[in-house]
Structures are given as structure tokens and as C-alpha cells.
């Protein structure tokens, strides 16, 4: 068996989220170097603040300021920081109960003294980021601190120009491997051939093969070359130009049953005015340079296929 294909796959998106009144006040506060908590009906102060009491599920919204100093309630030494984490040198993850709060906030502690300088119960204070935008990263990190409790600013949580949303970028890196069946399919395309796989039970030929027959739930493995010619079983006319796609609209996107296949695959139809494409049209692939899927399919000039020959595949 040829080596299974692999390729890098990056999934990256900016996660845009709106904030409710409590989160909005908290994150705006961070921008202004003020740490706010929220008071529950039984008098506890939650930092970071939430809109609903985690015990009673009552809606809460009374903002109270807490100090920018606090105590480590637990910690973990991260000697090898990963992408996106608050510091790019060894640091401690910490849960910090800020002075005046009853719950703890997760963040990073910059501890130049190393792991042995960190312990539960140690005193720390907020180190503010130089540029602040209204995000949890406006706290750059915590740092060791042996002074008195920090003074409050006197803020009541009312600000001009509230932060009402955050954009949280997310990026995950993968190495995609399509598995045995699809590897063989992609490799055949490079040779300008199309292969499918036949189900040992119902004898249907699947293109592209995915390694299983969805009707029988068994592995497909017998390779079958199909096409290259096929029949348009159904189609639509695309009128909206896709971003980064260099194809003039309108164009036709069709389901094409390749000769010998029991499943239609999809492709663009070219070489014919868009309003003359029809069900039953006989087409053949026009290969692009450098392997991969056909660029599009064009009419072969044969008479149209009889509906009965492809009606099971529509």
C-alpha cells in the first residue's frame, strides 16, 4: 500500500462574542485598571464576576471593587509555555483570590525566582498590560508582592465607552490524513484517473470512496476505475461570486454520475452556456495542471442519456 497522505490543516477563526452587563463592566474595568467583582445575595463577592449565582442560579449584578492584590490558592509550574499563553518564559499558573473576593481568578504568575519561589498562600499583585483593550489579558500576569493590600480606586463600575464585546482569536493546527480509501482516490487523481470502491455486499461503487458502504455498514476495498465520462443528474446555477474564487458568474454546479459509479459526485460544468446545461447532459473531465480534481467538466457531444439510466442516482 502506498504511504498514506498527510497535509497540514490550520483551523483559525476570530471568535466574536458580545458581553452582558456584568462581563462588560468587568472587562471595561480591567482596561481602566480596576478589578470588579459581583456580590451574591448571601454576601459573597465573586471575582471574576458572573451574571448568575453558581449556587442559587439567581441573577446577580451588584458590582463591587476588589483590590489588585491577593493570595495564591493553588498553583502549577509551567516550565515550557505553549503558544498563546500569557508569558513566553517559565511561569506559574495560579488561582488568585484577590483581597475582598471570595473566589479565585485564573491567571499566570511571573516568578523570576523559579518554581521554588512559589507556594500556596503567597501574596501577589496584578501587573497591568501596557496596552489594554478590555480583555482578561489586560492583566498581563501577576507578580510576587509583599506589600500591603492595594488601595481601591473607588470605582462603582460605571464607565464611559463600555467594552461590549471581545474578539478571541482561536487557532488550532492539525496534520490531516484522509485514511486509506481517500488516499488511494487522491493518488489516482494525480494520474488523471478516477477510482471508486465496490461494496462486497450490495456491489455498489462509491466515488469518492470513504472506506465504508453506508447502506451495508461494511468496509469497501475492491478498487474500480470509473468514468472518465459521466452524466449530469442534477445541477444549479450559481449567481454569487465566492470570495477568492476566480470563476465568472453565473456558472453551473452539477451532480455528475461517472460511468460505472453508483453515487454522483459534484463538479463545475464549463464549455457550454450556463442556461443550456440540462439533466442527462453527457460530460467529461477537463483536468487542471498539477493533479487534483478536474477543473471542470465539459460536454462530450454525445446524445443526452436516457432518464432511466441515471434516475436512481439523482
Amino acid at each position, binding site marked *: *500500500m502506498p504511504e*498514506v497522505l*498527510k497535509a497540514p*490543516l490550520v*483551523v483559525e477563526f476570530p*471568535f466574536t*462574542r458580545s*458581553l452582558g452587563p456584568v*462581563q462588560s463592566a468587568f*472587562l471595561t474595568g480591567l482596561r481602566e485598571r480596576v478589578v470588579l467583582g459581583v456580590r451574591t445575595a448571601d454576601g459573597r463577592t*465573586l*471575582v*471574576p464576576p*458572573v451574571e448568575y449565582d*453558581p449556587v442559587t442560579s439567581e441573577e446577580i449584578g451588584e458590582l463591587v471593587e476588589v483590590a489588585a492584590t491577593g493570595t495564591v*490558592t*493553588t*498553583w*502549577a*509550574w*509551567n*516550565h515550557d509555555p*505553549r*503558544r*498563546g*499563553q500569557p508569558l513566553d518564559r517559565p511561569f506559574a*499558573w495560579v*488561582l488568585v483570590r484577590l483581597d475582598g473576593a471570595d*473566589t*479565585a*481568578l*485564573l*491567571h*499566570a504568575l511571573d516568578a523570576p525566582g523559579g518554581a521554588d519561589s512559589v507556594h*500556596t498562600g503567597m501574596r501577589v499583585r496584578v501587573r497591568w498590560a501596557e496596552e489594554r483593550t478590555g*480583555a*482578561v*489579558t489586560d492583566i498581563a500576569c501577576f507578580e510576587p508582592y509583599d506589600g500591603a493590600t492595594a488601595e481601591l480606586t473607588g470605582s462603582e463600575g460605571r464607565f464611559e465607552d463600555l467594552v461590549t464585546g*471581545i474578539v*478571541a482569536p*482561536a487557532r*488550532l*493546527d*492539525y*496534520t*490531516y*490524513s*484522509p*485514511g*486509506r480509501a481517500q488516499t488511494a482516490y487522491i493518488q489516482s487523481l494525480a494520474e488523471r484517473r478516477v477510482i471508486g470502491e465496490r461494496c462486497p455486499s450490495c456491489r455498489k461503487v462509491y466515488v469518492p470512496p*470513504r*472506506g*465504508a*458502504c*453506508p*447502506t*451495508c*455498514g*461494511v*468496509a469497501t476495498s475492491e478498487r474500480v476505475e470509473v468514468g472518465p465520462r459521466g452524466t449530469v443528474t442534477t445541477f444549479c446555477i450559481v449567481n454569487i461570486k465566492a470570495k477568492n474564487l476566480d470563476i465568472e458568474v453565473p456558472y453551473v454546479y452539477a451532480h455528475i454520475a461517472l460511468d460505472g459509479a453508483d453515487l454522483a459526485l459534484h463538479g463545475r460544468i464549463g464549455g457550454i452556456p450556463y442556461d443550456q446545461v440540462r439533466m442527462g447532459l453527457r460530460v467529461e473531465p477537463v483536468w487542471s495542471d498539477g493533479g487534483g480534481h478536474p477543473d471542470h467538466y465539459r460536454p462530450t457531444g454525445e446524445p443526452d442519456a436516457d432518464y432511466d439510466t441515471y434516475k436512481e442516482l439523482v
Partner: protein
Amino acid sequence: MPAPRPLRDIAVVAFAQTDHRRTSDELSEVEMLMPVLHRVLAQTGLKTSDIGFTCSGSTDYLAGRAFSFTMALDGVGAWPPISESHVEMDGAWALYEAWTKLLTGDADTALVYAYGKSSPGSVRDVLTRQLDPYYVAPLWPDSVALAALQAQALIDAGDTDEPALAAVATRSRTSATGNSHAQLRGSVPQGDYAVRPLRTGDCPPIGDGAAAVILAAGERARELCERPAWIRGIDHRIEAHGLGVRDLTDSPSTRLAAERAGLFERPVDTAELHAPFSSQEVVLRKALRLDGSVDVNPSGGALAANPIMAAGLIRIGEAADRIRRGDSDRALAHATSGPCLQQNLVAVLEGEPR
């Protein structure tokens, strides 16, 4: 308060799993899953068309592709149409959904499966995407870091220490020598710190794998299996999202789920705990009041094989297999999800008296 008795007797009658491996790039998800589905069906002689309800657990974030579970459906034989559902969670929660479906009487049998291929991505980074997106996820704290915070809290509370954690890891992987499916077996070095206080040996292996279970109700279960593993109770509970709100040394959600599943009514002889980190076993033993008389993770547990999204379902399957083989009369199975044991499911399984 005694747990309410289920409306119908429902049992695990079959269980199958893959060998769990670090990578399986030659296989797509459906190629990895299908042999397991065939094996679990073969144990009962059922065909896909005989199954009343199908439910699966998996997550798109492992594959990096939207609706990846629809591809895996090909392996079930989903045409002509079947009654099917999916949870973006561990398969233990898919089993819970299937159990409620059987309780309604709409179906007598259910196929539950779960799979995860962790090898294409970086699990530590992937799991950050399940965290609170406002206050926590922007800091990218990875799953090992969060478990390490919990471990340090336990050490500070005097509940464990590093040698005790190492002993949990060693015991698990020694037990796994009897489990041919496990990924890490026998002597595994405790290693360097991953995130202190957790060492590599305290962390689960990262790997690919799948599992499947068949449930059946009442007489149907007796027809399909010589000694069905009856689900006497099953419940799942969740704790506050904010890590700093919780006492990380305890798991009240596990205790409450166990109480509602009837765990504390009579002792169990076996416990399959989904504790991916050695420190989490310490928390769970306390919450579930397990003493030395209980055989904990005879399969090796998640420290020996932790295919994400299947590892919890495997706990139920392993516990059920002990009953079906006659090695256990009353067993507990536990599954977890989220950081630091945020969500917990507990099932109590029993064999009929012999």
C-alpha cells in the same frame, strides 16, 4: 433518600473497543470505528436493522472538521434511515441518552458508539477551546496545566503527595498488563514534570481509539446475553464553570450523581473510574467513598488508554464486561468531561445473583 428505581430494566449486553494507539493515520475515523461496530454486533448476533436506536459521541475539534460525525455514520449502515442521535461529548453521555430512549419504551435495543482520533492535532491545545471563552480560554491554559492546579490543591490539603500519585500511575499501568487494548502497559517511567506537580507518568497517553456498547431492555437483554450487566442507576451532574468558584479537592457533582444512581445503598466490588490524571483518582475515591475492598480500574483506566470521547464509555463497557464474565456482581462506572472533573456521570451495574 433511596434512588428511584428505573421504569424498565436495561442492561449492557455487549461491548467492544479498538486497540488504542498513539497514531492511526492510515485509517479514517470510519475505518477505525467499523471493526468495533462489527464486533459488538457479532457478540449479540444483531444486525444494524435490528437496532432500535443508535447514539454516538465524538467531537469535531479533534478532527478539525465540521460535522465529522456524519462521516462515521457510514460505518453503521445508516441507509435506509435509522433512528439516530449524536452528542458532542464522551460516549458515556450518548449511552445516557440511549438509556432514556429505552426507558420510554420506544426501543428495546440501542447501539452506542464513540471514537476519537487525537493524533491529528494537539489535545492540550484543542481542549482549551471548551473553556470559558471570556475569562479563561484567552489565556490558553492547557488540560495538563489545569489538572496540575488541582493536583497542587490536593497536595496542599494533605490528600496526596507525589509518591502517592506515582503509585496510582504504577498500579493502573500494572493492571493494564491484563488488557490487550491498552496503550500504556506495565512499567512506565514516572518521568519529568509535565506541569509541576504532575509528571508525564501522572498524565494519560494521547491516542486514537473507538468503543461500542449495545443496550437492551428486559427479556431482550436475557436473550442476547448470558449474564447482562443491568444498569441499576445512572445519573450525571455538573459543577460551576469557574474553576476558582470550586473546591478542586472535592467532586460534589460525582457524589451527587453517585447518590442518585444508588451507589451508596450497597457496596460495589469494582470501580472503573475515568480519571485521566492520577490526581483525579484521589478526588474520585474520596467523593465515591471507595475503600481498599474495591478493585479500582482493573482495566488500567484512563492512565493506560484515554481515547478522548470514548474513554468514559469504555469505563462502562469494562465494568459491564466484568459482570458479564462473572468477575463482578456490582460495579460502578464513572465518566468525566471538562476541566478538573467538571462534569461527572456515574452508573451502577449489577449481575443477577448466581
